């Protein structure tokens, strides 16, 4: 709760949350914002933006604006679904490895390092190639089970330092069971790491889903930003001058990515006060630094 309150006082976080909230609202209320259906021909092919079609039409005559709105649903669903899976696996394994130590730690750390050095996107491509046209759900599950390693690494190292603190020692003295200590003593102190991991994983999942679909490994009947890119590229949108077809999903992905990254940066600043600039803190450090000459 304190983290949330602090987030509301951070300008980067506010902009990031505003972007994310807009995308979520647009995804929920898509049917109210457009009169067309995302999977119906509603105009002539490759019409430039006009009052009828705010962002023009695709080569098949679909309305780009409508597909953008509905596509946000898939991008967000895959992002948050896979992000949650990645974070849960990473946090649980990280806390267990850091707290239990010994053989358990060795095994988890070994697995983690191994997953970290096998290049992620090529691995995903190989998996997706064998599976065939992967639905968004399948993509989310694959992402979840292949991308947790970074989370384990940071959670584990943070757990290692928390384990040495007095409140953990005293809980151990009181004879609390291990799972209770991990869940109620250690986990609450990791909340900013978990937050960064979660938002970062959502960002990663959104980008990777779009990339896999752009490369033609997704299900072409899905309405998502990645499939929009794929269809536009297949229709040679750039070389025939239909820039609206390909730039729309590009801008959408860039804006959503920026929003998520801003939130993450803000959490990092709140968790690590030295990184903060602006506002009260800048004045305070300014006072301190006055003796140091110009910095």
């Amino acid at each position: 709760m304190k983290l949330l309150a602090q987030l509301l006082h951070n300008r980067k976080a506010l902009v990031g949350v505003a972007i994310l909230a807009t995308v979520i609202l647009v995804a929920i209320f898509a049917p109210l914002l457009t009169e067309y259906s995302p999977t119906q021909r509603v105009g002539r092919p490759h019409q430039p933006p006009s009052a009828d079609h705010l962002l023009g039409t695709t080569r098949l005559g679909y309305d780009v604006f409508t597909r953008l709105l509905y596509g946000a649903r898939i991008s967000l669903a895959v992002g948050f679904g896979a992000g949650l899976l990645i974070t849960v696996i990473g946090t649980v394994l990280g806390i267990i490895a850091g707290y239990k130590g010994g053989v358990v730690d060795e095994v988890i750390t070994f697995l983690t390092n191994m997953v970290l050095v096998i290049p992620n996107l090529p691995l995903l491509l190989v998996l997706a190639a064998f599976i065939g046209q992967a639905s968004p759900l399948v993509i989310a599950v694959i992402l979840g089970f292949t991308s947790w390693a970074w989370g384990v690494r940071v959670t584990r190292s943070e757990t290692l330092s928390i384990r040495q603190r007095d409140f953990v020692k005293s809980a151990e003295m009181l004879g609390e069971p291990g799972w209770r200590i991990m869940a109620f003593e250690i986990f609450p102190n990791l909340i900013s790491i978990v937050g960064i991991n979660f938002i970062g994983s959502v960002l990663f999942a959104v980008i990777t889903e779009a990339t896999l679909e752009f490369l033609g490994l997704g299900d072409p009947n899905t309405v998502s930003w990645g499939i929009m890119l794929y269809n536009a590229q297949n229709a040679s949108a750039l070389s025939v001058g239909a820039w609206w077809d390909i730039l729309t999903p590009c801008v959408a992905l860039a804006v959503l990515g920026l929003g998520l990254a801003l939130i993450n940066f803000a959490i990092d600043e709140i968790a690590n006060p030295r990184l903060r600039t602006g506002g009260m803190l800048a004045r305070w450090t300014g006072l301190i630094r006055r003796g140091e000459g110009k910095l």
Partner: protein
Amino acid sequence: MAFLLRRVVFYLAAFVAAATINFFLPRLMPGDPIQKMFAGAGSDLSLENLNALKLTFGFIDAPIGEQYLAYLRSVFTGDLGRSVRFFPLPVTDLLGRALIWTVGLVGTATIIAFTIGTLLGVMAAWRRGTRFDTVISLASIFSSSVPAVVVSLITLFAFGYTLGWFPNGYAADPMLDPSWGWEYIASVLYHGTLPMLTMVIVLTGGFAVTMRNNMINLLGEDYIVMGRAKGLSDQGVMLWYAARNALLPTVSALAISLGAVLGGSLVTEVVFNYPGMGNTLYQAILARDYPVIQGALLIMTAAMLVANFVVDLSYVLLDPRLKRA
């Protein structure tokens, strides 16, 4: 030395893990794995050639354990099978040619991005809270969060199609014969500019953010104050006291991000039709050329492991404590 030896053993294990994934994937999928793996060749494959391929990938009449060993044996003897699309071209030849382009592209882009990003990060941290810091931080966040596919497409649209300054694809003018002549090299540089620019844009932000945050964490340390107290110049303290120590975590971040670099280069190569590993893998996926797909994963993993080992070596040089460990 023990440190490096441990790393080498670990890298071998990681490579075997990648080979294991390759071994089990076709066997776990529904349907006949042999049919699936080599279907891309259609009827071009004679029975004799098919049997040779089956042997390479461990499809022999034996228990699964022996099949696995047979596959590992062919991997470690450097036999990755033959492409079914370009039969009988060996996978290693096909991918080896592509690897040169990717290493050139990724290597140069990483060095440029690392240099620019680190310098910007140092300067932003030194002037933290100023407008310079804000602009650099925001630009870095943006650069590190925008998907490589988006940057590639927008760069191609802007400089390739709209302005027409640079070519839209290929690594060199297809009319020229590869040679060490000036004309060919100039063509390679000209064609490589846009993919390079794309990758530098994608990579620089991450290096800058990491470096900035490391620096800021270090600037409060006592030895920084000491350096100032000694009357060293601002630049001296900034570069020799703070930046040098902040570089260490950045280098290990570089090792982790190498995988992402390969991923980013894959997409960029596809968009710019650049003949590197990523594009070869992509073309293989479109043609369902499974031997090439599997070989690409192995060679990319190996490239990643070698790069990681180089980073380990540089780590030993940067942090003398590791030499004794």
